[in-house]
């Protein structure tokens, strides 16, 4: 494996598929779905979560022996809130339009259950390096679902990817539109995000029947 031992590599690989935070652990769905109408927003959100979860896990792991267990939730919330304020200010400085699109959902990274879940389940009991890998792995698992949903919703909903038209021009009727294709505006509405995630879960569990519930 070279750089990583087998056990460390599993920390990154598991959350990508068989222990995915969204489709299996059912965490972090709240802020994930509302911003996936555009691929760009999904990617920026994924990067923000990657930063908060990676750094936060290391910080909590370094402090794990000095946090009194009774007030650990408040300590964790303060750490996350500080990191999220950094992300929010950076977004406002360098991508103001995008931070408007994401609106309150950047702030809601604070209450993203993946982050609290990983702090509680992993960082409080493991060293900084392993916690870092675990944070990165789970954030990537979150990112995979967000990007898949964002890809399909933007492609089918407005015929663009990252804002670039890929299916032709809907007004001048070029490309696919020449054959009578229409954008499915329904995909841009929020309920479709839930249905797309439902379909992803369906596909994933059909391929790996060990994950089926009941």
């Amino acid at each position: 494996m070279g750089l990583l031992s087998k056990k460390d590599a599993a920390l990154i690989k598991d959350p990508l598929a068989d222990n995915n935070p969204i489709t299996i652990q059912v965490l972090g769905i709240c802020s994930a779905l509302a911003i996936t109408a555009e691929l760009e927003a999904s990617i920026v959100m994924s990067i923000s979560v990657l930063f908060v979860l990676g750094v936060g896990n290391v910080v909590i792991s370094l402090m794990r022996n000095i946090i009194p267990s009774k007030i650990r939730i408040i300590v964790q919330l303060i750490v996350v809130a500080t990191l999220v304020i950094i992300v929010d200010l950076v977004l406002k400085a360098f991508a103001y339009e995008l931070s408007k699109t994401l609106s309150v959902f950047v702030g809601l990274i604070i209450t993203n259950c993946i982050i609290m879940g990983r702090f509680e389940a992993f960082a409080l009991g493991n060293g900084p390096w392993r916690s870092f890998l675990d944070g990165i792995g789970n954030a990537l698992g979150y990112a995979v679902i967000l990007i898949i949903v964002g890809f399909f919703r933007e492609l089918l909903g407005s015929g663009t990817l990252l804002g670039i038209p890929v299916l032709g021009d809907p007004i001048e009727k070029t490309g696919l539109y020449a054959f009578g294709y229409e954008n499915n505006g329904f995909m841009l509405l929020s309920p479709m995000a839930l249905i797309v995630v439902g379909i992803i879960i369906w596909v994933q569990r059909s391929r790996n029947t060990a994950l089926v519930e009941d």
Partner: protein
Amino acid sequence: MEHIELFFKSIFIDNMVFATFLGMCSYLAVSKKVSTAVGLGAAVIFVLAITVPLNWLLDQYVLQPGALSWLGAEYADYDLSFLSFIMFIATIATMVQLVEIVVEKFSPSLYNSLGIFLPLIAVNCAILGGSLFMQSREIATLGLATTYGIGSGIGWFLAILAIAAIREKIRYSNVPPALRGLGITFIITGLMAIGFMSFGGMLTGGDEEETKEDTTVEVQVNATEDNIEIANNTKIEE
């Protein structure tokens, strides 16, 4: 009138679960049985009804640009709004802790039946989301903020009650194995959200009518080519 409008708007049109996807984690995790769903829903209503007005006061007198002017003219330039996340979450964590202590003291049976879910309300996105939407939508008075808090809480309660009832029934249905449990819950929630979108037309009466008409005329003029596209764009900008 304003209160009634905001109340119904926050229950049906801006429903926490179906319109903004907030509080989904606990919504999916705690909706297997109606009885626990009711307990959690009631706790969410209560916490939202307290934290939204409290955070409104905090926002109005400490955090907004110029909010500190009551301390004296020299403080009028301060803008502490970057602190709002940390202040809001501190209020919420404190209130949840207080609620927990009070419930444990006066109703141990309710405390036991809620168990772990009570402290978890602190990290329920619906609660923080309520405060953040209160801030970004610039709700004008303390009374309206309270109405908004209670209304959003009731909206969340309705949603979790409905899905819990459906999930209790669906246990006897023949769902494809790979879709059982989580998958079908997602899809049902999506369908319910589509249903709730129809409430969007509920509040079009009153003095807003004239401006509404103007915009539709404009849209129709512009929308000779692709009506749906433009209608969608305006929807998103809202």
